[in-house]
């Protein structure tokens, strides 16, 4: 097991370096000089040349990448052009809100998905299965930013039950787990949960169906095991794959929150990314994407290790 973990971690190193390379190159695929973003509009030639040297833009690309990576390893991702504050601090503050949203959405989406999937798989080809499957397909097909708008229309505009935008009452600077804050979380969390709900439902349904049609289930039933016991076997066998899918979905929720955070003005990493794009704040754009991608890589690593730990069928040799 330890050897497997060590090997898996070693495999992550080149991925992390490549991810950093992609993030580094992002700034260089932007049309025009990357310097334009930091340069005042009326800057003189001398100032431009001075800044070019200061930012290291006059050096060859591989050298620039090396220096950038070295600084990034020390936690220095540069300063935001818009605010002047360090990128890392800005991103980490926003990521906290995204994590809150993703966890709330995961609780809703995974619970619903597992329940619907188990029921659909157990009652395969009946009307119950059809209803659950329709939910799942609607969940993966709905443009979630539009669903968010619909929820705002119904619950904020028409019924006036829940706030439409923001992450807490005015005057509140940080998140808290009380109702005053939680009611801001309800709509974004439901909106975020529909895609994982759909995907987990489909996965668990397929797994349940496959497991129930295997010979050992027949044998269990022939030996007189009650249905609850059979169900326990189904869950145990489905768990590793379902867990892997859910881990991946959690990663997608963390990294792909930009549309929903924009709809609800949720002050997370996606919202930050949005403002970085439109203010052409390239260091902030680069840093946010790097941090989110690294989150995703390490989440994948954790899922792989957890899966190997609970599933003896996965070869660890």
């Amino acid at each position, binding site marked *: 097991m330890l050897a497997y973990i060590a090997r898996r971690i070693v495999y992550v190193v080149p991925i992390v370096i490549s991810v950093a390379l992609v993030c580094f190159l992002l700034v260089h695929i932007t049309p025009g000089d990357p310097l334009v973003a930091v340069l005042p509009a009326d800057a003189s030639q001398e100032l431009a040349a001075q800044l070019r040297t200061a930012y290291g833009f006059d050096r060859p690309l591989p050298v620039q990448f090396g220096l950038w990576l070295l600084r990034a390893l020390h936690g220095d991702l540069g300063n935001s052009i818009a605010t002047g504050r360090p990128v890392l601090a800005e991103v980490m503050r926003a990521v906290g809100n995204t994590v809150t949203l993703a966890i709330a959405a995961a609780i809703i989406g995974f619970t619903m998905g597992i329940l619907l999937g188990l029921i659909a798989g157990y009652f395969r080809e009946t009307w119950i299965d059809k209803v659950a499957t329709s939910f799942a397909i609607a969940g993966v097909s709905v443009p979630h930013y539009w669903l968010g708008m619909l929820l705002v229309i119904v619950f904020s505009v028409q019924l006036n039950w829940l706030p439409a935008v923001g992450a807490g009452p005015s005057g509140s600077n940080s998140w808290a787990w009380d109702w005053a804050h939680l009611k801001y979380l309800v709509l974004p969390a439901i909106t975020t949960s529909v895609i994982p709900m759909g995907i987990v439902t489909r996965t668990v349904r397929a797994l349940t169906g496959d497991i129930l049609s295997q010979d050992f289930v027949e044998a269990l039933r022939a030996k007189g095991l009650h249905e609850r016991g059979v169900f326990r076997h189904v869950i145990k066998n489905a768990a590793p794959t379902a867990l892997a899918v859910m881990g991946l979905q959690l990663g997608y929720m963390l990294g792909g929150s930009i549309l929903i955070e924009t709809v609800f003005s949720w002050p997370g990493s996606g919202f930050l990314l949005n403002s970085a794009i439109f203010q052409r704040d390239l260091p902030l754009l680069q840093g946010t994407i790097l941090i989110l991608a690294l989150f*995703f890589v390490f989440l994948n690593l954790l899922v792989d290790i957890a899966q190997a730990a609970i599933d003896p069928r996965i070869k660890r040799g």
Partner: protein
Amino acid sequence: MSELPLSATADAALQAAPATKARGYWATVGRRIRRDKVSMACALVLLLIFLSAILAPWLGLEDPYKGSMIRRLRHIGTPGYPLGTDELGRDMLARLIYGGRLSLVIGILPVILAFGIGTSLGLIAGYVGGKLNTAIMRTIDVFYAFPSVLLAIAISGALGAGILNSIVSLTVVFVPQITRVAESVTTGVRNMDFVEAARASGAGPFTIMRVHILGNVLGAIFVYATSLISVSMILAAGLSFLGLGTKPPEPEWGLMLNTLRTAIYVNPWVAALPGAMIFAVSICFNLLSDGLRSAMDIRN
């Protein structure tokens, strides 16, 4: 038009694979999918949306660009404006139908491009194997380290707003996914006896890939690609929704949804209409793709 790629692929497969077996298989698939009511209903809805988008200028609609300050945000069912008007007083029905033109192109084109590029890459990686396979597949792995929405936003955000940039960024998102599928099915086929026989009879690698392997793997890759159209539609409209795709005053569903967002307090249901179009196209492609997949799975 939704039927078009299917029959085109079927034709390609007919030419490529051994004649008697292939005709039987694709004919069976065709018969099975025609019997599937859900798939046929979805195909019909898509056909209507495609046809109305293509024929929009000849449908006697209002000018989708012409607004009026005195008839802004009319409700659904207003005489003369069956689906109301938008925030600049432009006819919603006309804009929704014209909007299909851009929305469908920017949603579907990336998948078609990625299908071409990904199939070629996967075929080469799977057939040639060795170092080339490692080089291609490890590069693909890097893109898998990004959640797809994040990757699309990152590329689009760096390149800047624009239709072309949005198509490029979505193509980059889908190429790795299709390459992986293409590589895995090709690896499954390359060591089969008929490939060996073709090689023994003197066929070159290019001929073997084009004639013997492509015909056997294209169906599986194609079904996978159709399942991506739904995501692509949602993401393409999403980029426009963020302001990274189409620019005003162009009618496009994602952009319309964005500009109408402020109108939800005045006329919410008109504001929600463009999203309903994205949803309809996306769910129909998903159901059709599911239907195609189970029709091709003859063992059941």
